[in-house]
């Protein structure tokens, strides 16, 4: 099962490598990962998506917590949460398909961020599934390039944990 885990960690050199090394060394999966600073400049928030049964996820959270630089580990899939991922997609745009591409972009509430004579670059934000759905629909038209971020996630307010 997929789990989204949020890790607050001290922003020190090598700390990301401690996290990824833990995953590779113990044979855990990382499906996606994203890191950025929080309000406190010396604290970063790392969101990672991993898969595994309950035992594995329990080990993952415990092992993460054991790292000296880790402040807090939350398996936010245990709570109600929102998650977002972003993708930039460059699609082949010929006169015959332009309207179709824009319509698809609209349906997914995406935006056109770059235009050339032969292509559109689209930006889409949403859950991993939504981003994937848009990619699947654009694929027959001709995708030239994709860049996706990792998932970021946050628990919903008023839920205590």
């Amino acid at each position, binding site marked *: 099962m997929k789990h989204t885990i949020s890790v607050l960690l001290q922003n020190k050199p090598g700390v990301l490598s401690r996290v990824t090394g833990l995953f590779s060394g113990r044979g855990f999966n990382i499906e996606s990962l994203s890191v950025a600073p929080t309000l406190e400049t010396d604290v970063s928030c790392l969101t990672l998506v991993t898969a595994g049964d309950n035992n594995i996820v329990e080990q993952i959270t415990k092992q993460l917590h*054991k790292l000296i630089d880790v402040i807090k580990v939350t398996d936010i899939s245990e709570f109600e949460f929102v998650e977002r991922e972003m993708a930039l997609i460059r699609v082949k745009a010929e006169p015959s398909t332009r309207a179709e591409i824009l319509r698809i972009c609209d349906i997914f509430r995406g935006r056109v961020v770059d235009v050339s004579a032969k292509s559109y670059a689209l930006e889409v934000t949403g859950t991993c599934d939504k981003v994937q759905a848009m990619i699947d629909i654009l694929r027959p038209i001709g995708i030239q390039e994709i860049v996706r971020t990792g998932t970021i996630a946050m628990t919903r307010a008023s839920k205590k944990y």
Partner: protein
Amino acid sequence: MKITGAQALLKCLEEQKVDTIFGFPGGAVIDLYDEILASDKLTHVLVRHEQAAVHAADAYARVTGDVGVALVTSGPGATNTVTGIASAYMDSIPIVVFTGQVPTGLIGNDAFQEVDIVGITRPCTKHNYLVKNVNDLVPTIREAFYIARSGRPGPVLIDLPKDVMASRIVFPEPQQVKMRTYRPTYEPHPGQIEKACRAILKARKPVIYAGGGVILSNANEELTQLARNADIPVTMTLMGLGGFPGTDPLSMGMLGMHGTYYANMAVANCDLLIAVGARFDDRVTGRVDAFAPHAKIIHIDIDPTSISKNVKVHIPIVADCKHALTAMNTWFARSEEFTAAAEKENHLAWLKQIAEWRAAHPLGYLEEPGVIKPQFVVQKLHELTKGDAIITTEVGQNQMWAAQFYHFNHPRAFMTSGGLGVMGYGFPAAIGAQMAAPDRIVIDIAGDGSIQMNIQEMATAMQYKLPVKIAILNNGYLGMVRQWQELFYDKKYSATPLDVAPDFVALARAYGAVGLRATKPSEVEPVIKEALATKNLVVMDFVIAREEGVYPMVPAGKATTEMLLV
């Protein structure tokens, strides 16, 4: 007044009450060595290979119960410590390793003797640091010692660029280390203690399974009190030997792959398993689904990751073993439901059953006339040292025979590379142990294979006049691998015969040590007696039965009840 980084480091060692370090110099740490020469408070033991420095520091830590320290140079000096660090990590031994590094300006430049030792040791240290700014030096060292010795202990590495050692700072006032992210749990949850105690009251077939955590947390007395008070038989892991008196009637010796028949049978049939500071290692559990299949499991461990990692635990207690066992003993003392007499009555049939298993298959070996059996040598060592020696081992058959036949009655008397299984650990460990306990008898029980992995340390022992005794159980094989080849690979002895070997007696003499040899059983006792009476490094070469095996043995991946017996 400003002092250099090197001077500050020495002041930190003094602050941490470190009086002995093990090391080997080099260009990147030359500033430190300059200060060490000037210091009258610090004894530096010059090893002959950096791996030995770490093993020696490891054993020093085990004997003293405090942090062991090693110091090496950059590049190869640093990489040579990796095995020692990984071993200390697996066995949770508190050490701090200082490595030299090229000057900060050259880091990342592929400079001479540069290596990213922080990157290399990240997965085998509890934590590690590269100190790039001299102002961080002292707080980092204080934090490193704190991390190494607190919680589940372990190795911490500090990488020291050469220019940082030469830069000047004002030495900061001593300060208690406070960390935002690292706060080990020492006190057990009272509710869990009560649950555990009630489970013990209900149990009819309980077993205590004690590991290295008992020794690390100095909980042997509390454990002994619990076991004797509630009349619970005790089995120990390799790392736990000495945590409960090995000659006590309640002791079942070691469990697992080369554990006793009765310990393994007891665990397989118990209704309550009380795991204390142990981690359900594969060498202990065998096939996991057949390990204590009928038991409710209590697990006391300071490291939450150890709990329910390999085996599902019913009553987890995250705490220091000493604190948890004290809480349990107190609970029983206050409880009206508990009486020692009732517990004795409750466990009568169970202890009788274990005695029957013990009688059916005691720990033993077959004697052969005229041939020295390795188990006999270990028994003689036990007898002639009255069980009071500090024993270190190498890895393989020598290690298992030492564990089986030297019945440890005291903690911190058995040093072995348990988790990582490092051949070459025992001799440097003996050096570290002898430095820590100059008046004790220290014996390295070795094989002819593994002793050669750090045999250069004879020069170290001679230099510091350390009267370590090495007992080589010499069978001309890499014996444990040979045993596996005999049992599971049709006796195809690939790369295990050591047909070419040094004359260990002559080799000892070449270093200025004493060499003795025994080739028949009647020579064993005189050789040991002479060695014990000699105030010098002694190598005892026992020419033993070539193809003797270690039994009982649970083949890898089998249930622990599927033992091959003598």
